[in-house]
């Protein structure tokens, strides 16, 4: 029987031959990821109350990223509690190594076909690896850690096909902002989104992760991409033991005859750099259509905007240039490993030379945490995924979303700017 990728993974996890959309099933969880905010501090009291221990400590990964670097007393206390819990419960723990959605695959925890839950709304990121991964709250996570199970209403699949290839200076972030505008913040209807097409096949894993991550902004439960040679090559580099399972991945795709809820087709070649106006990712438009907007802060950070490739491409725009006067550029590399690589390749030096402030490998103000929250009436252009009112600072602050390239271009111009104006390696100096 023809099935979608989502149905195949859920059927296996639920111990069934097939599953039907709309039906509630109980599935066994292959991996549970938690972080310092929704993790131990909220989960431990519930486990105690239930009087149970972890169902399988080898299937739990803890990552500290929300309260890092612990620059407030309360944040430092929460980090300490997190570290104690990791030691007591003996789970895999990545402390201060970066944002959970980036660190989890980077350290080889994810594999295609897995059924995974994460204690964070951007958990659909794991879908980039062909895993069915979705976000849940802390109480539900405590339930998973106690039982190893979770209920799921089998989703329909919305296929999003991107034909042709992206042009220069256009990124996965631009694709997602355009999709948020076209489909709306509830266009995903809490079903499974699956990305496919030539443009997707051509994307790196880090770019695919941005697509899957922001399935959350479409209101989807998961954002899947079928595994291929790019997936295998990434996983081999992480040291994940994929072995003979690569052959099994052949079946991990949506059958051509499978029933879909919708099939949208877009032309990647025609896509221009996008920006989303305050206060919603759905307020997106091509950067050229935005009226002149001065910026105070340019923020290159978050799991959808400060991975190694994001840093590299933003630095290509900043190289040899200075920030516009009055603009502050903040750079929070998404993981320690990505920052180390960027440092080794001279990329971090480009940011420093341009006058950027380098922040911790953490969620930072993207999650509304920490000392760098935006002040009253500040206008910020940000490589993050969400710009809800007051999320990154004062309710009067205004956040525009864009790709890290567009953020870098805007930092140099002092106003929201098109990164294509700054592609100096094209021979025409900007």
């Amino acid at each position, binding site marked *: 029987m023809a099935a979608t990728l989502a149905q195949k993974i859920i059927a296996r996890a639920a111990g069934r031959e097939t599953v039907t959309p709309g039906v509630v099933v109980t599935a066994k969880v292959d991996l549970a990821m938690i972080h310092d905010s929704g993790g131990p501090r909220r989960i431990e009291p519930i486990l105690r109350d239930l009087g149970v221990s972890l169902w399988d400590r080898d299937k739990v990964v803890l990552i500290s990223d929300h309260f890092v670097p612990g620059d407030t007393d309360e944040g430092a206390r929460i980090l300490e509690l997190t570290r104690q819990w990791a030691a007591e419960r003996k789970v895999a723990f990545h402390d201060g190594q970066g944002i959970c959605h980036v660190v989890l695959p980077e350290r080889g925890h994810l594999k295609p076909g897995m059924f995974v839950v994460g204690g964070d709304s951007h958990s659909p990121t794991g879908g980039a690896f062909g895993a069915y991964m979705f976000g849940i709250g802390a109480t539900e996570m405590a339930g998973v850690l106690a039982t190893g199970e979770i209920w799921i209403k089998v989703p329909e699949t919305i296929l999003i096909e991107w034909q042709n290839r992206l042009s220069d200076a256009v990124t996965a972030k631009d694709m997602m902002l355009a999709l948020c505008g076209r489909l709306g913040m509830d266009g995903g209807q809490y079903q499974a989104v699956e990305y496919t097409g030539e443009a997707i096949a051509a994307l790196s894993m880090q770019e695919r992760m941005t697509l899957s991550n922001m399935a959350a902004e479409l209101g989807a439960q998961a954002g899947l991409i079928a595994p291929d040679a790019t997936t295998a090559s990434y996983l081999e580099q992480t040291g994940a033991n994929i072995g003979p399972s690569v052959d099994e991945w052949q079946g991990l795709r949506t059958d051509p005859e499978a029933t879909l809820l919708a099939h949208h087709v877009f032309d990647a070649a025609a896509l221009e750099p996008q920006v989303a106006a305050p206060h919603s990712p759905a307020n997106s438009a091509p950067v050229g259509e935005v009226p002149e907007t001065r910026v105070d802060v340019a923020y290159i950070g978050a799991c959808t905007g400060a991975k190694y490739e994001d840093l590299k491409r933003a630095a290509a725009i900043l190289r040899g240039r200075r920030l516009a006067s009055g603009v502050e550029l903040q750079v929070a590399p998404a993981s320690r490993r990505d920052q180390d690589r960027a440092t080794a390749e001279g990329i971090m030096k480009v940011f420093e030379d341009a006058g950027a402030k380098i922040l911790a490998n953490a969620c930072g103000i993207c999650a509304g945490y920490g000392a760098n929250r935006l002040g009253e009436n500040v206008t910020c252009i940000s490589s993050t995924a969400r710009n*809800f009112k007051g999320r990154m600072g004062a309710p009067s602050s205004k956040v525009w979303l864009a790709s890290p390239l567009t953020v870098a271009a805007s930092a140099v111009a002092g106003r929201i700017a098109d990164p294509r104006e700054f592609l100096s390696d094209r021979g025409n100096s900007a």
Partner: protein
Amino acid sequence: MSGRVFLFGDDIDTDQLAPGQYMKGGIEMLSQHCLEPVRPDFAASVRPGDIVVAGRNFGMGSSREQAAEALRHLGVAAVVARSFAGIFYRNAINLGLPALIAEDIAGICDGDAVEIDLEAGELRLQAKRKIVKLEPLPDNLKRMLADGGLVAHLKKRFTAERNGETGQ
């Protein structure tokens, strides 16, 4: 259950329900800022038993369950919306806060006195003599709500398992 309606629009997000800057504090403090960006007097005016009614995609954004917990802490008896963001919906039920989908909220006004009948799947506008149909909850969620949320539900299951009975 019956109470007064607090009416909101579409796309009420989790940063409005549980602002990030208060997340490090406890629910007592956090709930005092619940919905502050859209309705500054909400925490001060809402009374136990009151009902939040909203448009589409209520609770979009973060997975922080404090968004649902803050409402429950303030005594909100139920949230009725045209649609919910998936994670908020799960969190609400897990915490014992009924999240109910209504096809049409057009006739409901802020301040209306209403009564919700979960069994019948109805929201009744007492003064207007009008009934708004509510989508029935799936059976597993009905059981969880009846038990008082996921933790109470699991306790019941574990107790049953320890006593040698079958779970669920």
